[in-house]
C-alpha cells in the first residue's frame, strides 16, 4: 500500500510537473496574444476606453468576451451589432432607449469618453476569440415565425433594386433608428423586444412601406412620444433630448416621400 512518503512525492511531483507545463504554456500564450488580439491597434484611445470600462465596473452587469455578470447584454461585437451612432445615443440616456425595461446607470461621460469606450469595444470586437460568440445555429429555423410576427419583416421592405437607388439620410443611422428598424436595406432586421406593460414581444417593423400604414400626423405623434401613443412600447423616447422636433419632421417627410419611389405589387 502507498506510504505517506509516496503520497507526498505524488503531490509534490505532480504539482511541479503540471505547474511547469502551465508556465511554459503561459510563456507561449503571452508571446502569441499580441498577434491574435491585434495589439498594435490598441491606441491610447482604446487604452483609455479600457480604463473607463474598469473604473465604472461595466463588467458588473455586462459580459465582454463572455466574462462578467449576466444582467446586461454581451458587448464583444456590440459595435458591429448596433453601430457607433446608436451606442453614442444610448450611453447618454440608457433609460430613454429602453423605456420601462431593465435599467442601466446613466453615466455623465463626455463625448470624448464615449468615443474612447466605443474605440475599446470596437477593438474587442476584432479580437480572434476562437469563434466566440458563435452565430445562433437555430436562428434560420426561426425566420418564418419572426417574419409573421413582425408583419413587416421581409414583406415590409422595398424591392432591393429600389432600396439601393434611394440614399438613406445619415440621420437615420446617427439617431439610432437603424439600431432596431430596417430601412432601405440598412439596419437591424426587426429587433424584437417586450412591451414593458403587457409583456408582449413586438418586432421593430421595417420602415420602407410605413407610408402605407400611417399618416404624417400619426408618425410625428408616435416618434415624439411613443409612450403616450402606446404605453410600455419598447420604442425609445428620443425627443427632444436627442432628436429635435425639426428632425422628426424631416424624418417623417422622408418616410412619406418614399411613396414616390415605388408602386407596391398589390
Amino acid at each position, binding site marked *: 500500500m502507498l506510504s505517506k512518503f509516496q503520497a507526498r512525492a505524488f503531490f509534490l511531483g505532480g504539482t511541479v510537473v503540471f505547474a511547469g507545463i502551465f508556465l511554459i504554456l503561459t510563456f507561449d500564450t503571452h508571446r*502569441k496574444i499580441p498577434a491574435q488580439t491585434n495589439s498594435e491597434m490598441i491606441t491610447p484611445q482604446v487604452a483609455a476606453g479600457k480604463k473607463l470600462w474598469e473604473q465604472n465596473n461595466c463588467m458588473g452587469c455586462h459580459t465582454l468576451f463572455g466574462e462578467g455578470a449576466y444582467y446586461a447584454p454581451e458587448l464583444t461585437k456590440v459595435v458591429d451589432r448596433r453601430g457607433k451612432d446608436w451606442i453614442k445615443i444610448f450611453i447618454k440616456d440608457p433609460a430613454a432607449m429602453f423605456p420601462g425595461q431593465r435599467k442601466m446607470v446613466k453615466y455623465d461621460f463626455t463625448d470624448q469618453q464615449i468615443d474612447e469606450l466605443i474605440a475599446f469595444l470596437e477593438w474587442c470586437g476584432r479580437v480572434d476569440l476562437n469563434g466566440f460568440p458563435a452565430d*445562433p445555429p437555430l436562428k434560420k429555423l426561426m425566420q418564418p415565425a419572426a417574419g409573421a410576427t413582425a408583419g413587416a419583416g421581409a414583406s415590409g421592405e422595398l424591392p432591393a433594386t429600389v432600396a439601393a437607388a434611394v440614399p438613406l439620410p445619415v440621420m437615420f443611422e446617427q439617431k439610432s433608428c437603424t439600431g432596431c428598424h430596417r430601412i432601405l436595406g440598412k439596419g437591424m432586421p426587426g429587433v424584437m423586444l417586450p412591451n414593458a406593460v403587457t409583456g408582449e414581444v413586438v418586432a421593430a417593423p421595417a420602415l420602407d412601406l410605413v407610408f402605407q400604414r400611417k399618416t404624417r400626423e400619426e408618425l410625428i405623434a408616435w416618434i415624439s412620444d411613443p409612450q403616450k401613443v402606446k404605453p410600455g412600447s419598447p420604442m425609445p423616447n428620443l425627443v427632444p433630448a436627442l432628436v429635435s422636433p425639426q428632425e422628426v419632421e424631416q424624418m417623417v417627410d422622408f418616410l412619406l416621400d418614399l411613396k414616390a419611389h415605388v408602386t407596391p405589387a398589390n
Partner: protein
Amino acid sequence: MKFKTQKIAYWFFAAAMLLLVLQIVYGFIMGFARIGMDGLHEWIPFNTARATHTNLLIFWLLLGFMGSAYFIIPEEADRELMWPKLAWIQLGSFVLVGVVALVGYHVNWWEGRKFLEIPRPLDYLVVVNVLVFLANIGMTVWNGKRYTTTSIVLYFGLLAAALLYLPGMIDFDNQTLDSFYRWWVVHLWVEGVWELIMGALLCYLLIKLTGVDRELVEKWLYIIVGLTFLSGILGTGHHYYYIGAPRYWLMVGGIFSALEPLAFLGMAIYALAMAKKGGRRHPNKAALNWTLGSAIMSFVGAGFLGFAHTLPQVNMWTHGTLVTAMHGHLAFWGAYAMIVLAMIAYALPVMTGRKLWDNAASGFAFWLSNIGMVGMTGALAVAGITQVNLERRMGLDFLTVQKEIEVHFIGMLLAACLFLVGILCFLWNFWRFGLPSDEAVHSDVRAAEEDVSTPEPARAS
C-alpha cells in the same frame, strides 16, 4: 481547546458571519432587480450589488480561513500563537480595508475586474495585511513543538493564495492579457490553492471528529490535493477558450477540466470513507454533518456542475450565461462556505466550553440552508439553460429572453428565503454559544475531543 490564543478565531468567525448575512442581503437586492423590482437602482445599481455580493463572499471566506488557521495552527504546532496582539490588529485592519472597499463600490470607486474589484490602493493594504497574518501563523508553525502535515498544507495553501494575488495586480492595456492573468488569481485560488486550505481543514476535522489515525488521514490528504493540482492547474485553460488566447487551450482546458471532478469525487469518497472507518462517534454531529456535507456538495457543485459546462463544445454556448452563475453558487457553497461553517460548528463548543451541538436549530441550519441552496442552483440552472437555448441557439434578443426567464428568479428568491432561514438558525446557535472563555482551556469538552491519533514525532524547533 488547548491554548488561550486560539480564542482569537472566535472573532474572525463572528466577523465572517456578519458579512455572510450582508452578502445574502445583496443577493436579494439582485434577485429582486431581476424580476423588475429595482427600486434601489439609484443607490445600489446592479453592478454595485454584484461586486458587493461576490466580494463579501471572498471576504468572509478569507476571514473564515484565517480564523480556522488561528484555531488550528496553535494546536497542531503545540504552542501558543506567536503574536496574539498582532492577530487582533490584523483582524481590525482587514475588516477596515474590506469595509472601505465595500463603501467604495457604492460611490463608483473600484477597479471593475470581475472578483478583483478592490481599488488598487486597497490591494496593497490587503497584501500587507495578509503578510502580517502569514508571518504570525508561519512563526507559530516554525517555533512549534511539532510539524504536522495538516499545518504545513494549510500554511502553504495560505501562502500560495497570497502569492497568487499578485498577478492580478499587473496592469495591461490588452483586455485579453488582463483577463488571462486575472484568472491566475481567481481560478488558481478557487480551483487550486483554496482547495489546499479546504483539504487541510477537512483533514483536521476528520482527524478530530472520526478518530481515524492521523497518518492515514494525512496520507490521503496528499493524494487528494495532488489530484487537485494535477487537474486544476492546467484546468485554468477552461477560462482561456474564448478570450483571445491560442486555440490549444481548448484542448488543454477541456482535458484537464474533465479531470477536475475526479479530485472532488476523491475528496468526497475520502471524507465518507474516513467517517465510516472511524469507530468513535463524536458527539458533535453538527460539525460532522457540515464536514461531510462540504465534501459531498463540493463534488456536486464544483465537480459535477462545473463539468456540465466545461467542455469547449458546450462552453461555446454556455459561456457568459447564467449557467456559470448556477455552477458558481453551489460550488462556493459546497467547497468553501460549508467547510468554514464546519470549522465554526466544530470550534465553537471547544472555544466556549458549551456543548450545544445537538439541538433543533443546528439541524435546521444544516438542512434548510442546503435545501435552499440546491433550490437556488436549480432555479439558476433552468434560467441558464433557457437563456442558452433562446439567446445563444435561437438568436432572440437579450432583453426578450431575460423577460422570459424572470419567473425562475421568483423561484430563486423563494429558495433563497429557505436558505436565509437556515443561515439565521446557524447564527442563532452561534449567538447562544456565547463568548469564548479561558475556562474552556482543557475543560471537559476537551476530554471528548481528545485527539486519539498519534501525533508525528516532535521535533526540536
